């Protein structure tokens, strides 16, 4: 009985959480639609979210591409299929790893910072001060972050995948001795523009996940510094899990629109 009650309570909390995130997303999109946009804040956030996230995304994409190439080479070499390493890595980077890695890294770097900043504003009454000054917190805090995220994320995803493929080329050709012309030709042959589109579509969804979960956690933060810490942890965990779960369903759905191979 207690287990059933506990399960129902957790499920109800999960539904409430989804409802709050959806409500925040709806309110933000309505504000954007109504033109309540502060361009200066959007540019500031693009610098914070997009520009300053590049290093972490490039390093993650690059080294993932490099290690993936090495492991694929060790397996394919035994079958004399080492030139297949290029397309395998390229497809994986564009269709799966690029968006997921960029999403998770942005959740850790940017999402956590968003929650901490908005959460601190909440517990120190700065959000109440905004409201008291007739400034809607969603317009002022969430809209610029959401727009900046939607603008930045496609670039970050492509950067992550692109540097993964570049690292793959370097490791495959320069370190492991795959013939460059075959590597390049096969990669080009099996990669299509639909792979990049899939990458961008996923990036857009992951941007929405990170920004709305992070802002929701910040806006709902309570109980001082401890509460902000909890909210920040919750952001990283919830965003990462949501990205991984949504990625599976997006892969299945997008594979119907853009079939692989």
């Amino acid at each position, binding site marked *: 009985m207690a287990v059933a009650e506990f399960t129902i309570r957790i499920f109800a909390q999960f539904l409430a959480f989804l409802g709050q995130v959806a409500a925040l997303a709806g309110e933000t999109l309505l504000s954007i639609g109504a033109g309540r946009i502060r361009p200066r804040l959007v540019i500031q956030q693009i610098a914070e979210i997009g520009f300053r996230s590049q290093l972490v995304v490039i390093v993650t994409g690059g080294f993932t591409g490099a290690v993936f190439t090495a492991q694929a080479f060790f397996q394919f070499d035994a079958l004399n299929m080492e030139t297949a390493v290029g397309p395998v890595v390229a497809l994986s980077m564009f269709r799966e790893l690029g968006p997921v890695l960029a999403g998770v890294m942005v959740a850790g770097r940017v999402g956590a910072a968003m929650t901490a900043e908005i959460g601190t504003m909440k517990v120190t009454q700065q959000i109440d001060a905004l409201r008291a*000054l007739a400034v809607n917190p969603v317009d002022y805090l969430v809209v610029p972050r959401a727009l900046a995220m939607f603008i930045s994320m496609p670039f970050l995803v492509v950067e992550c995948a692109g540097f993964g493929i570049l690292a793959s080329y370097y490791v495959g050709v320069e370190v492991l001795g795959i013939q460059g012309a075959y590597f390049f030709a096969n990669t080009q042959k099996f990669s299509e523009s639909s792979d990049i589109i899939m990458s961008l579509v996923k990036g857009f969804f992951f941007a929405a996940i990170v920004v709305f979960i992070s802002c929701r956690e910040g806006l709902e933060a309570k109980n001082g510094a401890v509460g902000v810490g909890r909210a920040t942890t919750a952001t990283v965990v919830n965003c990462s899990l949501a990205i991984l779960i949504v990625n599976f369903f997006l892969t299945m759905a997008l594979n119907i629109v853009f079939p692989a191979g």
Partner: protein
Amino acid sequence: MMKTEPLIQVRNLVQKIGAQEILRSLSLDVMAGETIVLLGKSGGGKSVFLRHLIGLMHPLSGSIIFEGHEITTLTERELEPVRKKIGMLFQDGALFDSMNVFDNVAFPLRESGERNPKIIRDKVAESLGMVNMTGHELKMPVNLSGGMRKRVALARAIISPPDVILYDEPTAGLDPIVSDSINKLIRHLQRELHVTSIVVTHDMVSCYHIADRVALLNEGRIYFLGNQQELRDSTDPIIRDFVDGRSGETIY
């Protein structure tokens, strides 16, 4: 003589936080242009009451009528025009951490659409001058003392003088000289700009300096409402304990 309508009418306001009943059918009328000082024990619901007046909290029941319109049922967006007429000074200032003093004070002007840098500069300088904070424009809030933060917050609240200002302990933590300048400023705003003020304070010196009427909040209700003379003359033990600063406890 025709009786004028109160600017703010509060009727039977009820609020609970957790299981604790903070406001129990609180009623109060605030007339335009007057300064009401709200006294009461710490944790007695004074700040909670102020937050209701600007729509930061919604009551469980009861009504607040501002300029003839019910505000307790309004949404965040619908409250925006009301909030443009009511300013609030928060207890700890609630300055924006990410902005320096200048940008904090200029914030309401910029948000109201003012783009002329000279007008913004002049008005910020004037507001900071009124609270003796000239020369601190480039400091970040984290580098200010509690009293300085409060004064900057006051400058922000008065830069576009609203019709009503709610002060949550404006002189707490300030030295007597700065407290006196804040009291004079509240008086100045009332006399020159006819600003209506509701001031939550424990500072009796401040109370006697600025109050047109004094309200004492006790057990979630307005226990006393009258002018300064009536407060001084009261023989009610609860009022006397508060006014004279007696706890009623014996020290062994």
